[in-house]
């Protein structure tokens, strides 16, 4: 999430743009980017401004920079609800849909889009408020109930989330995304059997062409045979996705499948250190040092557990226990670790 100051300057820039104050807008975007150089929304806004001023050469560079920044953001897991698979800052969306919902009142879409952007920015409370406004327009709309459930889940109000997911699934029993969401909430509460059953059902519903989503769902329930095969298919479709390679190696190791030598990606950024660990080219300390966020630490701990399992199950148990204690339940590694701990008798 960008620093608040950056976002405020970005918003000021948009307001200046709308007023026709190009210089003022440029200054605000510059300030936003000083505070947060990776704020792609500000970069592209600046590009459009420059382009409109006839400075196309400069603008072109900025357009490309914004696209590069977006493409470097990791996409979310494909087995989750559509909104979690996106890349972006969503600063533009928050600002735009705020404007829409104040002008196009009593409609669902502006509230939903605004809520989704806020949820992705890590502000589930604001998202919840927006979804509840949408529900006042169309009470009991299953799509919005499901999103409200996601917001509650993000706020760790799992019981309430499950109640909503149950209502949605009573109306739409084949809603694979809500099954995924309920599985996560169940797993957060330690209800492994219920969680695994939701993901089993989700796997049944996902078509074969959605191989990455199938693979992730299988990984959550620690069904490594299915995961190994499905990640192979996903990798064939997206050969440059390092996570599919990493997870395929993980699933393969856990089922004892023969694996090809690991070719490390040229890009050193995350999750390359995890692949390096698996290739024997990085130490535990190096991997943990490279894990700059709590979610990355969870990913690192999971891989350390996988590597340790055969020779030192107690160490594996230790790594995975930390994931369950501190990790976000929405992570694939959280569910997989919890399932593995049960297998280890922990």
């Amino acid at each position, binding site marked *: 999430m960008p620093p608040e100051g950056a976002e405020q300057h970005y918003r000021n820039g948009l307001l200046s743009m709308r007023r026709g104050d190009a210089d003022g807008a440029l200054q605000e975007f510059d300030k936003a980017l000083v505070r947060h150089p990776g704020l792609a929304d500000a970069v592209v806004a600046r590009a*459009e401004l420059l382009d409109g001023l006839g400075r196309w050469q400069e603008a072109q560079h900025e357009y490309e920079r914004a696209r590069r920044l977006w*493409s470097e953001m990791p996409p979310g897991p494909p087995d989750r609800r*559509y909104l979690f698979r996106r890349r972006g800052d969503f600063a*533009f969306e928050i600002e735009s849909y705020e404007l829409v919902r104040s002008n*196009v009142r009593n*409609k669902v*879409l502006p509230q939903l889009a605004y809520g*989704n952007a806020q949820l992705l920015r890590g502000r589930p409370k604001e998202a919840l408020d927006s979804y509840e406004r949408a529900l006042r327009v169309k009470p009991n709309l299953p799509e*919005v109930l499901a999103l409200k459930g996601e917001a509650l889940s993000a706020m760790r109000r799992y019981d309430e989330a499950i109640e909503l997911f149950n209502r949605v699934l009573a109306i739409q029993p084949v809603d694979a995304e809500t099954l995924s969401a309920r599985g996560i909430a169940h797993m957060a509460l330690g209800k492994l059997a219920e969680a695994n059953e939701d993901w089993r059902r989700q796997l049944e519903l996902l078509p074969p062409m959605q191989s990455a989503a199938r693979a992730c769902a299988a990984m959550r329930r620690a069904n490594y045979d299915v995961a190994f095969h499905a990640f192979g298919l996903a990798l064939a479709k997206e050969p440059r996705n390092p996570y599919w390679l990493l997870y395929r190696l993980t699933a393969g190791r856990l089922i004892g499948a023969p694996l090809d030598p690991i070719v490390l990606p040229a890009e050193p950024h995350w999750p390359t250190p995890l692949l390096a660990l698996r290739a024997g080219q990085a130490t535990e300390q190096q991997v943990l040092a490279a894990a700059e966020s709590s979610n990355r630490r969870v990913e690192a701990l999971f891989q350390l557990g996988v590597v340790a399992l055969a020779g030192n199950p107690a160490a594996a148990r230790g790594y995975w226990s930390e994931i369950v204690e501190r990790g976000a339940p929405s992570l694939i590694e959280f569910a997989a670790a919890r399932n593995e701990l049960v297998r280890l008798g922990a």
Partner: protein
Amino acid sequence: MFSVILYGRNDSHGYNLHKRAAISFNALAEVMSDPDDEILFVDYNTPDDHPTFPEAIHDTLTDKAKKVMRIFRVRPDQHAHLRSKTHLVALEAQSRNVALRRSNPRNRWILYTNTDMLLVPRNEQESLSDILGRLADGFYQVPRFEIPEMLWEAAFDRRDPAGNLAKLRDWAVRFHLNQVVHNYMPMKYDALGDFQAALREDMFAIHGFDESMILGWHCDSNLAARLALYRGRVDTLIDKVFGYHCDHTRVAAANNKGRATRMNDQDQFIWNVASPYVPAQAETWGWPDVGIEELRLDRDTSYERFTAGLASTIEPSTVPFTTTSLEWQLFEDLTYDLPHTLPFVCDQVVTFPRTTAIMLAATRADFLEGFAKAWKAMGFTGPLLVPTECEGLPSDLEGVVRASFEELLPRADLFIFEFGLSTQTASEPVRAGRVMAPIDKKRLKVVERLFKRAAVTEEETRPAARRVPRRFIGVNVIYNKFWTAFTDYVGANINPFCSQVLAGLPRQDESMKGKVLRFRARHAL
């Protein structure tokens, strides 16, 4: 790299439709550079006896446009189940989904636009394929710029797309054309339907366009709303490509009735959209189980089929011209020139589906022989249904099915009734005062009786799966005694005598005369 999806119908959507469409097709092809690129045109609900819209203007298209274009023909009978639910004759969501389902799976991108758009890469060295090829996954729009109607009408050369794009680059500056019109999100720009680029995979995931939108308008906004939810962002390609629209507001479009325009509900389809998906059509969007004819302009064209058909059955003329006459004293003379007539008969059928089953009730054996050869050589696979009541006709011809009229009636998709003289020979002069022989009269009476009965019972004898009326073609029914008989029952135009042929759908004449005629025909009085 990408499939462009367009739709339309061979009708009169403004007086200059043909010109702007040709300009657009050629310009779109011009910015394609990947061998997998394609223009998918869904020709929706054009009458069966008309060519598709691109076929109608093929001579104005460049070789490149013809090469990359695939035409999917949705027949009136395939639209019939929706006819009572909409005032429109061409449906956008259905059309675009039919194309999406059948698009090249190797293409990563789908580009939705319309047949009056020109896309101009800002970098002249780049094609649209280059641009899309380097683009990250996403959902992209560009603003639409307007070209004043007189400019494109007067200055564009349909077959010079590169020249037209160059002119646009110049006009954009000289005439201040480039005005970006922003819109509320998720419709980033006004007139967004003229450029929406989405991943093919995304379009399949969200189940295509919403096919419940059958009243026109807002299909593009609905798609934007759903893709914006699905992707989270709506990205711009304004730095890469400008989109220009051939303004055509002198004559309002067919679905534009000013303030009285009927349209899809904005609240339902835009502002209250709550999901990217349309689960109700998850298995059915784009009509995956419906056989949709695909036509090409660069191979196996209607012209090629037509000429192949005729070449199989008639020899080139050996004289500079032949003669006939429509003078009234010859009203009873039913001789006609078969080699001259067959091209006009084939012209009536060549646009129909190749699987068409056609009933042919005739008097002249040489007509049946000649037409049967042409039918096969034109690539038709459906049978020729010849009633056994028609005597004196060969029964051993390939593709001919002989059975009783009553048995064949519910199997026919199309009818030909030929009113000639079974005794006419190939060498005798035409319309020279020939008198009918008794056997001619007998056989003509049979054909006339079958014709009338077929016409008045058309609806009740229609094949079970068919929803639209069947067409009747009359051969040798102009300026002779069967002219009135044919047009009493079939709503045919006034055609020149020289064409020898009339065609149309059964008349629904509710006058007393019409009722009497139908009663007599039904009971063969």
